[in-house]
């Protein structure tokens, strides 16, 4: 009996040792040390809708990248933390990332977190790349050396105004424009609203300006004001919720004007594909070509979303996040291994990437960590989603120079 027990134990020990060797061997040959990125995002909370979608797009890109072997054998390890668009949480996340030895901080949240994140990352000497919204710290002519932005909104006072008002001017074809300009009572949203007003007045447009608190439940009286003021165009600056509310309020009051549906906080598909399906007076604004248009290049993204169980539907925000991942891959590739802050910042200071046909190009220089922005405009016509005009992509430089319109993102070249 005793011999059997000893023999069995010895057999078990040998089996375990063989297993451990095989595991460690496979680890050694399969992966090198990973690039580490700390990713703080508004995955839940009031700002969650759009940011969660683009974060998922980023995640499935990284999963796809790692499945291909990473970057020269180095996988990319991303540590995701939810900040609920709260500054204190985001700062705590950055501290955690620093303790885990990340090489870069990525942010996909609302402007409420930026001051804290940038301050903490600067203290830790870590480069920051922001998605969705561009902080002022990345803007020319003297950006924070560590802060870069792929944020689709661009600089609040500049990019959105040039793109949106430029497209309205194109659509108006010389007819008088009375612009209903509604913004959320948030710092960057107000700046966007001021930008819209300034740009609109440049073209002789009349403006009815309203700032509404995010807590406001019913925008019917605001819609009434706009309609009484004979507004024929409507723009909105701010997170997604009020964008839906004002559109509904205007429609139920029988308004026949044009709503430039800017969806910084949510998806083109939810608004134009579901809620306002078939509404030909509403024009949806996108930052990447929406999957509703079924470009062949959407297929690998859709496949990855399915393979890696994306928790959100396939939509233009998820595509946006995918292409954010492409930017990060390119940066890490150029930086090589090991990638410390100096190398990463050096790469990012002289960085450019073409992302057509689905996404616009990105270019950063030492004096401009934001670069150009492009928005596409689509509407319903004859039961289909189509470009609102032939040249339906409108661009803006960081300094407010108009770059559009163009017919496709292939024409949106890096200058």
């Amino acid at each position, binding site marked *: 009996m005793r011999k059997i027990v000893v023999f069995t134990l010895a057999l078990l020990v040998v089996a375990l040792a063989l297993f451990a060797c095989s595991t460690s061997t496979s680890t050694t040959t399969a992966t090198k040390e990973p690039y580490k990125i700390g990713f703080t995002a508004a995955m839940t909370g*009031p700002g969650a809708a759009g940011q969660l979608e683009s974060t998922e797009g980023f995640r499935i890109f990284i999963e796809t990248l790692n499945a291909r072997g990473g970057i020269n054998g180095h996988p990319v390890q991303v540590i995701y933390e939810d900040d609920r668009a709260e500054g204190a949480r985001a700062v705590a996340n950055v501290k955690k990332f620093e303790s885990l030895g990340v090489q870069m901080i990525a942010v996909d949240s609302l402007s409420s977190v930026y001051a804290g994140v940038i301050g903490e990352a600067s203290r830790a000497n870590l480069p920051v790349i922001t998605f969705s919204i561009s902080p002022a710290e990345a803007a020319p002519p003297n950006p924070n050396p560590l802060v870069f932005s792929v944020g689709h909104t661009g600089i609040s006072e500049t990019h959105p105004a040039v793109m949106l008002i430029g497209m309205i001017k194109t659509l108006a074809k010389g007819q008088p424009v009375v612009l209903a300009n509604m913004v959320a009572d948030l710092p960057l949203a107000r700046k966007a609203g001021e930008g819209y007003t300034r740009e609109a007045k440049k073209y002789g447009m009349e403006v009815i300006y309203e700032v*509404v*608190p995010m*807590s406001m439940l019913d925008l*019917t009286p605001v819609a009434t004001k706009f309609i009484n003021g004979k507004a024929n165009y409507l723009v909105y600056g701010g997170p997604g919720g009020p964008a*839906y*509310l004002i559109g*509904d*309020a205007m429609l139920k009051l029988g308004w026949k004007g044009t709503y430039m549906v800017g969806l910084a906080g949510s998806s083109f598909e939810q608004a134009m594909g579901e809620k306002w399906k078939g509404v030909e007076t509403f024009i949806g604004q996108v930052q990447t070509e929406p999957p509703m248009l079924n470009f062949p290049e959407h297929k690998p993204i859709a496949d990855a979303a399915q393979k890696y169980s994306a928790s959100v539907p396939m939509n233009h925000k998820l595509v946006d996040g995918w292409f954010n991942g492409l930017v990060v891959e390119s940066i890490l590739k150029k930086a090589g291994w090991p990638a410390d802050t100096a190398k990463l910042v050096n790469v990012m200071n002289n960085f450019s990437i073409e992302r057509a046909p689905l996404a616009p190009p990105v270019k950063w220089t030492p004096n401009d960590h934001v670069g150009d922005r492009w928005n596409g405009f689509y509407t319903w016509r004859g039961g289909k989603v189509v470009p609102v005009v032939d040249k339906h992509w409108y661009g803006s430089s960081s300094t407010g120079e108009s770059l559009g319109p163009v017919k496709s993102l292939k024409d949106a070249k890096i200058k």
Partner: protein
Amino acid sequence: MVQFGVNVIVLASIYALLGIGFVILYRASRVINLAHGEFMMLGGYIVFFLASVIHGSPALAFIGAIIISVLLGAFIYLVLLRPMIGQPIVSTIMVTIGISILLRGLATLTWGPTIRSLSVTTGIRNSPIFLPMGITVSTYELATVIMAVLFLSGLLLFLKYIRQGIQMRAVAENALLASQRGINIFAVFVIAWSIAIVSATVAGILYGSNVRLDPEIGFLGLKALAVPIVGGMDSLTGLIPAALIVALLEVFFLTYVSPQVSESIPLILLLIVLLIRPWGLMGTKEEIERV
């Protein structure tokens, strides 16, 4: 100007519907239900759920939601509030605060923060109706006004002519005497809670179809609390002028001053009335002194 008036009447109607729930419960049990807004939100989500499951039959979804509301009201009273008998009123009010937090959290977990529109789910569109004098009102705005009138009228008739309604008035007058006269006051409380939750559900269906449905709309309940305070916590008829006053001032400030200021108007009014005339326009002075 005329459209301004329409907006006031629509807002007053939803405030009146919500105010009914506050008054009925206060009259019956002296409880101020601070979860009333969340019950409105829940009512909307119940319809959302039922309409998603029972395709093509919004009427069934509405009826189902009303039935569930009646049962929910009974459940809330029997399980959560009845055990509070003998406890200070403030403890009971704290329980309602707990219910409100719980409901909001559950709604967020279950349906997420996305702003929805019940009109999309039910398929009954919120279309504009063009009336004379340049007035435009939407389908659900008109429904809100009609339902507020019908509900309030029906309730007043119920309290005046129907046995259970008369018993509710007796309990509101003097609960001890009513029970000694053979009235089952617990049954009265169950009916009161059911009526309150039904009124909240109706408000939730209409608001969720006309404006929005998401976990945040419970805040409307807090704003609506100003209406029974202004009108008198124990006065159903006081709801009418109070709702019009609150809505008029809110829409006025929104239109001519600033949307940010308009948000706090109901709460400022609430404070002013409590300081100057706490029994409200048509409430009973003795009631407030006793509280």
